[in-house]
């Protein structure tokens, strides 16, 4: 027996409905727009800041708390003094250096020449101009220092005057490092 009449199957509404089409168009465009806005806000507020601070922190070789000296007339004044390990014949020995961007080259008292295995007699002799344009002879050598985990060789002059402060100067040090004086955290950062 043959059946006649309509065959019932899944009904697909293929007819065009403008409102539904507009809704789908809005859905298609709204999602990217919202995402882009969200991305912009995220990048501006968090990502860029974190990325920059992360890269900066990766470059930090050493962080040193600021030291202060109490002067009779001036009160407490910050001293840019950093303890740095210097390679000697008996291993690394800590020495306090004054960060001095006014000094052309780093300097150490003369007794450090022998400690670092250098003979003054065979180092190049130069004139050293100190504070108040006082002049003396200085002997140009090298020192190996440890900043964080980084070992580096810096040019240095061994100066005549005993008891003077050791200096970290421009040649080899300031020209290759960034020094950040963070007054808020009361610390000095030496960066690559």
């Amino acid at each position, binding site marked *: 027996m043959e059946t006649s009449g309509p065959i019932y199957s899944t009904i697909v509404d*293929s007819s065009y409905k403008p409102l539904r089409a507009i809704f*789908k168009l809005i859905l298609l465009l709204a999602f990217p727009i919202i995402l*882009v806005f969200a991305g912009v806000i995220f990048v501006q507020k968090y990502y860029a800041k974190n990325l920059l601070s992360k890269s900066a922190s990766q470059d930090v070789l050493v962080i040193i708390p600021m030291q202060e000296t109490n002067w009779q007339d001036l009160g407490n004044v910050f001293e840019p003094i950093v303890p740095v390990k210097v390679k000697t014949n008996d291993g690394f020995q800590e020495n306090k250096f004054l960060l001095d961007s006014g000094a052309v080259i780093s300097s150490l008292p003369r007794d450090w020449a022998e400690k670092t295995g250098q003979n003054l007699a065979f180092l190049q002799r130069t004139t050293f101009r100190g504070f108040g344009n006082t002049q003396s002879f200085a002997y140009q050598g090298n020192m190996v220092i440890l900043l964080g985990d980084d070992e580096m060789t810096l040019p240095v002059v061994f100066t005549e005057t005993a008891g003077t402060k050791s200096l970290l100067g421009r040649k080899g040090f300031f020209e290759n490092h960034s020094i950040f004086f963070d007054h808020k955290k009361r610390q000095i950062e030496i960066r690559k």
Partner: protein
Amino acid sequence: MSILKKIDKLSLVKIIAFSAILSLLVSLPIVILLVQQQTEIRSKAYEKPKLIVTKDKTLPGPIPNESPKIGRVFPWVGKIGDIVWIQGENFGNNPAVKRLIIGGVTLPEEMIASWRDTEIQAVIPPGAKQGGIVQVRVGQHPMSSSLPFSLYDRETKIKLTMKEGIISVVNGKGVSKAKIWIGDENTPTKELEIPLEINIDDETPVFNTDNKPILSIILYDNLGNILSYYVDPTEFGF
């Protein structure tokens, strides 16, 4: 209208998928652009430093009325490339017409660190002779000469030491004579020739300076050749 029809034919799942892909395509370049913009903002704060050329020497000055006179060359011992201070008077302040000769070599301007009326600072030039002298000429004045100075290098073995004013020779085998000039800072008041016979490498006392300033010391072998020696600068005060 045809675009809307096509969009309408797409299922909701497809619409969401396309939307996600579109979001990625649009947001990626924008995010990269923003990150780069941040870097640009930082670099804008940086000012390119201006190149400043500084002149260390004073401008050429006049010729002094009196003739130049070298007192001493300090220190009297050194290596090629070391600086020496030529102390004396009437050198002028960087005079326009001048000549400085160290160990037979006329110094070019760049090897003269400073030239003041009472002191010239200069580098011992390559080619300077062992036992040579320093000569200074200013304008048409006669040339002034110093006492001889001693040169050494990294191969030098003979060493002079000074403890409590007594000068001794270390590793001085072969040294047969020492010539010593002492006096005040500008004038040699005493010239001594001390015969020596050193056959050992130990420390051999040579001379007591009585703590007077040394102006020069030259060592000789038995053939009269000048021998190189070095000193510990700290012991001799330079």
